[in-house]
């Protein structure tokens, strides 16, 4: 058989094998067999120099034609197997032109979440000044005159005996004075304490207080409302623990723990292996507080509760430094889109 016949045979054989091939791997093998460094068609091309001059040109042209034909067919088949079909110059993978958008501060988001949840339960938002009087911040809330919180050690004062409110509860004192029951209010806002700034404590923090006053309001109502909130805000299967505590403006008073949502109560580093997280303080509004605001404490009763905003946010998002909230580092803020 002449070399030319051999070339034709190899080309046909390759074309047939390509036609039957159904995987990229087998195509690669075919490529190696015919066109690889030691491939059958490649060998013929390499051996041209050994041929007599008169054959060299014809065989060379024929072998080259075969190489191109097999190569093209291989590429076509490869493309069809890799699903590519026809490829155009349009590149959909260039990044879309995303207009730059900003982010609402995480504290605003958490406050909004809390307020929305309470709004769904029928609570209305009320606000008050950050610079307060001793009366609304302490006296109206039944703090005894020598209570340590009234000290310069704990509270920051400004001129004319005003102070920076230490909780948002003075909004309650003000609201009770000017409204008649039924009352159902939440009061989000910032508060201040005379405390050094560290990873765990800050001179300023946010709080959401709430209170309800009407005829026949009971501790059972308070428990129901707080349970409903915690289910909505944390998770539906949250468990609560009410521990008796002391606040000057409520009696009885309680501290509320929720089952740790990070370990589902099994105990972890965040809950100090207790399975519980302290989240909220609450209690029945002390009759003195109602009377001071001119509300008949025999006829009406009420409950109040208060919670920090930074603390649950830190727990929920695993933030380990409270200072991040007021630093406003946009590498931090933009994590909470």
């Amino acid at each position, binding site marked *: 058989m002449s070399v030319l016949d051999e070339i034709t045979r190899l080309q046909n054989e390759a074309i047939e094998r390509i036609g039957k091939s159904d995987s990229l791997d087998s195509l690669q093998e075919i490529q190696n067999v015919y066109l690889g460094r030691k491939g059958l068609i490649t060998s013929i091309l390499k051996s041209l120099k050994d041929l007599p001059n008169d054959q060299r040109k014809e065989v060379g042209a024929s072998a080259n034609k075969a190489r191109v034909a097999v190569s093209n067919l291989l590429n076509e088949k490869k493309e069809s197997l890799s699903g590519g079909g026809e490829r155009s110059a349009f590149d959909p993978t260039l990044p879309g032109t995303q207009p730059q958008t900003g982010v609402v501060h995480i504290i605003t988001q958490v406050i909004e979440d809390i307020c929305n949840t309470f709004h769904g339960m029928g609570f209305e938002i009320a606000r008050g000044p950050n610079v307060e009087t001793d009366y609304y911040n302490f006296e109206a809330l039944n703090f005894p005159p020598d209570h340590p919180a009234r000290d310069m050690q704990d509270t920051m004062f400004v001129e004319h005996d005003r102070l920076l409110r230490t909780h948002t509860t003075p909004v309650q004192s003000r609201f009770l004075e000017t409204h008649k029951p039924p009352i159902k209010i939440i009061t989000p806002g910032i508060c201040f304490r005379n405390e*050094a700034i560290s990873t765990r404590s800050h001179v300023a923090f946010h709080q959401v207080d709430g209170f309800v006053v009407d005829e026949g309001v009971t501790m059972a109502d308070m428990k129901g409302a707080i349970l409903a909130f915690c289910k909505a805000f944390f998770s539906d299967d949250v468990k609560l623990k009410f521990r008796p505590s002391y606040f000057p403006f409520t009696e009885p008073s309680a501290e509320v723990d929720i089952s740790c949502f990070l370990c589902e109560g099994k105990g972890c580093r965040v809950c100090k292996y207790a399975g519980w997280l302290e989240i909220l303080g609450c209690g029945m509004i002390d009759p003195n507080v109602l009377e001071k605001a001119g509300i008949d404490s025999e006829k009406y*009763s009420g409950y109040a509760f208060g919670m920090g905003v930074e603390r649950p946010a830190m727990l929920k998002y695993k933030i380990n430094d409270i200072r991040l909230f007021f630093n406003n580092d946009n590498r931090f803020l933009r994590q909470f889109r």
Partner: protein
Amino acid sequence: MKISYKWLIELTGLDWNPEDLGDRLTLCGTACEYIDPADQYMHGVIVGEILAINKIEGADKIRLATVNLGDRQLDVVCGAPNIEVGLKVPVATLGAKLDGGIVIKKAKIRGIDSEAMICSERELGLSDEHAGILVLDSSATPGQELAELLDYKDDFMMTFELTPNRPDSMSAVGIARDMAALASVKVNKPTFELTESEEKASDYIKVTIEDEVACPRYAARIIKNVKIAESPYWLKKKLVLAGVRPISNVVDITNFVMLELGQPLHAFDYDRFGSKEVVVRMGKEKEPFKSLDGADHELTSEVIMITNGKTGVAAGGVMGGFDSEVEDGTTNILLEAAYFNASMIRKSRRQLGFVTESSQRFEKGADPNIIEYAIDYAASLLQSLCGGEVLAGIVDCYPSVIEPLKIKFRPKRCNDIIGTELTSDKMKQIFEDLEFTVTGDTDFEVTVPTFRPDIEREIDLIEEISRIIGFDNIPSSNTNIGSLYTPIHYEDKFKKEMRTVLTGVGFDEFISHGLADSKLANLLHTDRPQLKIANPISEDLDIMRNCLMQTAMTVIHHNVSHRSLDLSIFEIGKTYLPPDDKDYWAEDESLVLAVTGNTQHTWRDKPRPRDFYDITGAMKAMATHFGWGDFSFEAKQFSFFEKEISFEISLNNKVCGLIGKMNSKVSKKFGVKQDVFIAELNLAYLLSLSNKLIAYQPLPIYPAALRDLAMIVKEEVQANELLQQVKKSAGKYAESVEIFDLYQGKQIEKGKKSIAISISYRSKESSLESAIVDASQQKVVADLVKKFNVEIRDK
């Protein structure tokens, strides 16, 4: 408050395990914080008997003791001076973990293998004593566990966090009382025998109270011939597990009775008291007093003083004096049990500058009527443990007896407040378990013992019922209180929408607490007063801010110094400015917008510096959203802005803010070296323009006719002037007028600019004929030429 677990179990006879006890007390208001094994530093520590002591060559301080550990002998290197052959001592063996982080490991000391240590009290967590090793009772058996010998095994140190309203919980009996009430059992209070001698105490001491408000009761006993020594282990252990350092039997007894009953006591050395009379009075200004810790004080009239009629011997209820302190050689004791006014003790100890176990109890409120029992109990212990002779009688000065309070209590009211259906009998039972007495059936009269000064009103009694039944046993109700409709205040909705618009156009929200640095405030609105903090936590947070630009600059500084150079930020927050009415500093809300750095760089958009128009653009987005109309900008010089770019902002002809490019010198003082554009707007005014109902406009029926107009004009002619003129000239059919091109450069003469305006004409009644439009257009051109000398360009 720390107390031994076994002590509480002894007092109640209950079999609760420590965790159980902690949980139950926590749920009734005495929060248990920690439960630490009493023998936590005694694991691997056993009794050893010293068999021999040998010198170590080349060492003069340390010696080698051979100890018998029962089943083996061991050589132990020891540096203590008080080791002697035959002594029984605690030996910490391999692996023992002692107080202060000491772990016993194999080591070589002076070439000698060492794998044990003879311990001092400090290493065992028993006291601060570490001058010598702890010498154990001679009856101890070598090899015995130390924890077992000292009865620390299976005991725990319970740490409670008490609420400020519960002084009664500051004692073992007080805590046991809550346990007993939970289980409905009685507390086994300590019983004792006391034999008095013939001699009368009143022959030895007289008590006078000069200030009955400060000190309503003062009682004294005389105990003669005591022998000062170490306390027995059982007593020391109770102190140690309560976190109180044992000192000597007499002092330990006073502390022990205080820990058990809550009544602070003080023992004076009678022979060094200085007289035969106790006079209780207020201190005199600048009166000198040396307290038993050796510190010299200058008194004020706010310190309650115990005196011998001449000089002060103790700061009443706070701390004893140096000169009459019980010493090793003391033989005769004047024992004090008194009751002081709570708030006066608080003042006293503030003046003196320290808090003691005693002052803590008095300032929360002690029990004036436990004094006899407490002083007799202490006297009996001084008799049985120190060999003292107790003289007959208590010298008790109690001019006006403090009676227990009687409070009216309505069981129905109680159920109404806590939301339960408890029976009257159940409530009565709870009160009796708390040692209150109850009379009456439908309504009760409850007599509250004086050890519960926190209970003054019916609501306080309701709280007692609720905490003893346990909050977990109060049902959870789903009743809706209030109306079905809950308003959302427009102010809240407005701010929320504003945030949505601003984040939508690429601005990040930041928030501030409002505390600011007066030095930086002085760089901005120098004319605005500053609300100063009287007791700032630091110099750079000494005022409440009087504008939001200051905090915006601080935030920019923080970000820029962390290499976030490209920022568009806003805050909605309060400023603190002088009041309109005199009652309050006005807390008006503002909106601040600030940009700096470059716009984002993508494959399609090349970055450019963020500038003035990025802010006015965001303002326009808000104006569109809220329907405010157009802002206008009047040049006005603000010292903190660059001269060229410094404006007052108006809306509907009312000034409502300012905008400009921050003066680079001011920026630098904030630590910012790049250009900052900033605007601050009055939020209340924007809010007042916003809550408008939108009235629907019918959609146009007839087509609009569009005309463009390009012109060359002097560069100082402002865009808004041209637009206003065009609107005026184009007549009633002009529907909108917009700028669509601005050019300055090569083809345009210097000092001039090319502006292109598009005008849309439309009629509601018909299709506009081109003649009408052309006429309007001609008037526009004529007016512009006349007014601004524009040169109309051909298309």
